């Protein structure tokens, strides 16, 4: 008798009904599974889509403003350099411009001085490359006006109409701010490639009338920067040629659009997201898969008789297999779809927030169907894979099982309780009542694996998050509390200004003054090199604590340079090895290099600086690079004295800027607020993960064991002893979960922090004891909470019913 098509459809409908109701009957387990899936999918969508949208927003802004794809900076070159670059193959557009770095004096009450950069523009003419967008006010309309970069303006509360004074080697010029702008070159306001971060407070970029600039600085038709647009893919090659062309004009720096200072910082920032977009969803989907696996196993175990019957009635193996695989796919899809919607909303919010922080005038938040499809596909694939094994077990159920008296016979039971199993043998040494939970763990390996895996993942998220927080706080603390023993960090406009600093020594409250000299350098060892700022400090200085890896203070000696431990490792140098130190802007015209030895390595997280002896470094590098190098001093004094001194110094022409550690500390800790929110959200996710897994495991655990536990009770064990047995098993599981989660989390933490690592910066992955304690506390709290429902049920159980019940 052939089954007609529509009959098959209605058979499918009935089996579908069964799937839906089975899913419903799992209750808490189904819901926690869907939650896990939803969270996993939405996290993936949030991170992946936000990253894509941010990238698209940035790229769109770059495109609109013709962000330069190849740049060289020179001391001074004739305009003919621009024409030569125009002829380089691959170049589609060129622009030469005059840019000088000097000091910007703000006209507030204390007349603060900050680093200024002045870019010449022609009013009424759009730059063909690196064009800006006016966000407040208007374009300049004369020689006395300027535009300032918006983040600098915001950080210093500058508004259109305000007056600023520009100063370059003693030459001053006043400008009225006509507007603030967003520039593709300063999304992260970093002055050069060596900057580890944007400095909106102390780095101000001004666009001024080109003629006014030339007249003010007394320079002719020279250019200091050449920017080019190239056909895509030829940037590296074009930069190489441009470097060769610019070399005779005092090459200072060069970059392609990818390692442009601001673009590079932006890229680093987004890199951390990529790690997040992989680690987090994976953990959640893994837990969801485990949870699905165990739930389906449970359904199938309970339905052994039914499956046997279906097989006995003529349902084929394949139909049974599909039936349960479909169930897995259905549950995951139910979680994945809301996850997709949530994820899109989340990514929108995230993009808006981030765009607000870096202030790009473009904010794209379109959905990425391929990201969502990937997420849903992954979720369903995970569901199908997780469902496959139990489903296959179901399909292979011998139909004869339906005939057997005890349909719930479990092969795993038999295997787990075989006397030759050494694990079971071990449990024989336990008191009888404890053997039950111990064997419970052994005889349901898949359930134990689920619980342990899920708990370990949750625990890993908690540890990873706490680890990130600890590392951030550590590196801030390392800098602010351990290294810095000064109150003021002064940058001087010339080495002659030293005397100004020396005069401060006699002021009451000033306990120590250290002179310093800085120059951006390349440290070269063999064929490897690293960019950093070389910093010379006086040998007996007392304002900075710079420890060796043994924790002793460093003794700086002439000819020796100290660098960060991990940078040394990357360069492959050991203390005593020869290194070449070269001024970062060295060119054929102005080569400044010196041979030193690695004095030792410093145990620090920020690797962007090298330390040497003050006079030695001045002689070897800094004095030779002046005026492209900097001099300064660090002053130790009480904060009240520091405030007074700061005002006094900031009024002086010989001072470029003064940073007070008190201000810096407040600024850093207030910027930590966002980090704290982020950490809080991540901790929440970790707890959700652990909680969802525990909830499904423990409630299922107790319900599944109801008959056994009820039997114990009817045999005379107290309700307390019985629930204790059930609870103990869950606590044992939690213990195992933590035992796996601790090393797993430690390992993940290392990898996660590693993804933030750059040439300039590395996090130390250090997890103090309290982080483990915290993770354990969260997990154990969740265990107690998740046990409540099951225990309540056990207390109010109808013994007569439960001892008979088979399902």
């Amino acid at each position, binding site marked *: 008798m052939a089954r007609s098509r529509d009959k098959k459809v209605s058979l499918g409908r*009935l089996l579908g009904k069964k799937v839906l109701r089975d899913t419903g009957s799992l209750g808490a387990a189904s819901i926690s599974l869907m939650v896990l899936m939803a969270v996993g999918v939405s996290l993936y969508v949030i991170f992946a889509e936000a990253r894509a949208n941010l990238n698209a927003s940035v790229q769109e802004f770059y495109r609109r403003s013709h962000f330069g794809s190849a740049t060289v900076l020179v001391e001074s070159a004739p305009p003919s350099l621009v024409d030569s670059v125009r002829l380089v193959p691959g170049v589609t557009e060129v622009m030469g411009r005059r840019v000088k770095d000097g000091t910007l004096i703000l006209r507030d009450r204390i007349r603060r001085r900050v680093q200024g950069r002045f870019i010449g523009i022609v009013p009424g003419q759009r730059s063909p490359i690196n064009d800006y967008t006016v966000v407040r006010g208007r374009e300049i309309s004369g020689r006395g006006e300027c535009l300032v970069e918006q983040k600098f303006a915001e950080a210093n509360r500058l508004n259109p109409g305000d007056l600023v004074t520009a100063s370059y080697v003693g030459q001053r010029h006043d400008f009225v701010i006509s507007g603030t702008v967003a520039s593709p070159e300063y999304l992260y306001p970093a002055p050069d490639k060596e900057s580890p971060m944007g400095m909106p407070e102390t780095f101000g970029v001004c666009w001024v009338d080109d003629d006014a600039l030339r007249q003010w600085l007394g320079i002719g038709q020279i250019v200091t920067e050449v920017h080019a647009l190239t056909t895509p893919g030829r940037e590296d090659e074009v930069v190489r040629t441009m470097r060769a062309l610019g070399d005779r004009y005092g090459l200072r720096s060069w970059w392609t659009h990818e390692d442009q200072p601001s673009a590079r910082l932006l890229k680093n920032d987004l890199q951390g997201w990529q790690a997040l977009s992989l680690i987090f969803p994976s953990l959640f989907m893994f837990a969801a898969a485990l949870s699905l696996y165990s739930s389906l196993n449970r359904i199938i175990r309970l339905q052994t008789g039914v499956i046997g019957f279906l097989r*006995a009635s003529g349902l084929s193996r394949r139909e049974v297999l599909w039936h349960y695989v479909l169930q897995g796919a259905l549950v995951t899809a139910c979680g994945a779809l809301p996850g997709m919607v949530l994820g899109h909303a989340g990514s929108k919010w995230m993009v808006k927030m981030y765009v607000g922080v870096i202030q790009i005038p473009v904010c794209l938040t379109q959905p990425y169907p391929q990201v969502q499809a990937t997420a849903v596909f992954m979720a369903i694939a995970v569901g199908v894979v997780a469902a496959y094994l139990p489903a296959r077990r179901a399909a292979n159920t011998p139909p004869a099982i*339906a005939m057997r008296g005890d349909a719930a016979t479990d092969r795993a039971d038999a295997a787990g309780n075989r006397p030759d199993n050494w694990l079971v043998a071990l449990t024989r040494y336990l008191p009888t009542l404890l053997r039950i939970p111990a064997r419970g763990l052994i005889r349901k390996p898949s359930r134990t694996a689920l619980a342990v895996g899920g708990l370990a993942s949750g625990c890993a998220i908690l540890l990873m998050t706490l680890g990130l927080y600890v590392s951030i706080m550590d590196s801030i603390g390392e800098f602010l509390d351990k290294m810095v023993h000064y109150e003021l960090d002064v940058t001087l406009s010339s080495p002659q200004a030293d005397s100004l600093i020396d005069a401060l020594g006699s002021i009451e409250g000033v306990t120590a003054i250290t002179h310093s000299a800085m120059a951006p350098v390349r440290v070269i060892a063999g064929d490897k090199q690293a960019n950093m700022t070389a910093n010379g400090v006086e040998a007996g200085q007392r304002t900075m604590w710079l420890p060796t890896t043994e924790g002793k203070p460093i003794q700086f000696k002439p000819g020796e340079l100290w660098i960060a431990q991990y940078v040394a490792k990357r360069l492959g140098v050991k203390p005593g090895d020869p290194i070449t130190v070269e001024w970062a802007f060295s060119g054929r015209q102005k080569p400044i290099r010196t041979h030193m030895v690695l004095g030792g390595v410093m145990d620090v997280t920020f690797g962007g600086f090298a330390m040497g002896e003050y006079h030695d470094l001045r002689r070897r590098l800094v004095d030779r690079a002046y005026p492209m190098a900097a001099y300064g001093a660090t002053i130790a004094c009480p904060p009240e004295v520091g405030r007074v001194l700061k005002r006094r110094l900031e009024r002086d022409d010989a001072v470029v800027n003064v940073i007070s550690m008190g201000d810096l500390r407040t600024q850093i800790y207030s910027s930590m607020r966002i980090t704290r929110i982020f950490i809080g959200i991540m901790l929440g996710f970790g707890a959700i993960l652990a909680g969802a897994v525990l909830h499904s495991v423990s409630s299922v655990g107790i319900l599944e064991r109801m008959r056994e536990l009820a039997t114990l009770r009817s045999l005379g064990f107290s309700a307390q002893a019985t629930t204790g047995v059930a609870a103990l098993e869950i606590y044992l599981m939690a213990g195992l979960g933590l035992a796996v989660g601790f090393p797993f989390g430690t390992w993940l933490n290392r990898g996660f922090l590693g993804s933030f690592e750059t040439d300039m910066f590395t996090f130390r992955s250090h997890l103090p004891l309290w982080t483990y304690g915290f993770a354990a506390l969260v997990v154990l709290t969740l265990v107690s909470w998740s046990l409540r429902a099951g225990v309540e049920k056990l207390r109010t159980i109808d013994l007569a019913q439960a001892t008979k019940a088979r399902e």
Partner: protein
Amino acid sequence: MSAAGLANESLPAVVARDLTKEYHLGAVVVQALRDVVVTIPQGRFVVLLGPSGSGKTTLLNLIGGLDQPSSGELTVMGQRLGNLNDEALTAYRRDTIGFVFQLFNLVPTLTALENVQLIGELVGNGQEAAALLDAVGLAERKGNYPSQLSGGEQQRVAIARALVKRPALLLADEPTGALDDETGHGVLQLLWEQTRSLGITVLMVTHNEDYAASGDLVIRLRSGHVVSVAEQTDPVPPERLGAS
């Protein structure tokens, strides 16, 4: 294939020749069935009796195509089972055999009606499900889930579910074993009446000696051997069993 489609009365329902089934449990060999020779004509209500462990379930499993004999030959409704692969066995079970189990094995998440429909639709006979539930006396309980039904009611659903296939051969392994005497008696009565009116051959395993009186044929097993096959020309309908 329905019973109606196999009206060839001369064809026996089951022919077993030297049927042997051994289970190997490590080094130990359990002989569940030894050289069983039995022929069951069509349309009979056969009662299979024997102490626990005598091989009754094993014999039912072999006839139902749930398991393969170690040796011997088995022909059911003219079909030799020895050389059928899994696919063919699946089709055989779907089209020829109906099962009723001691433990009902209803799908817990489908209602009584849906449980019957599920199997009805498997063989293209879903529309009869409701009528069959009426026939087994569950007209009012169609929408109930198994957990809302008593044991006797669940077994009635199971019988309806077996009948909806119109099997040529219905195998029932201690269908009353999990029920109290009174309920069990009712279930037996139902099974007897329903199959008799449809002309379905029934092979029912039971512990209850009293039920032997209702069989057209009574087969007794002991330690895997058939010890007797007794034909009863005038079986007592179950409804009159209690009275005697």
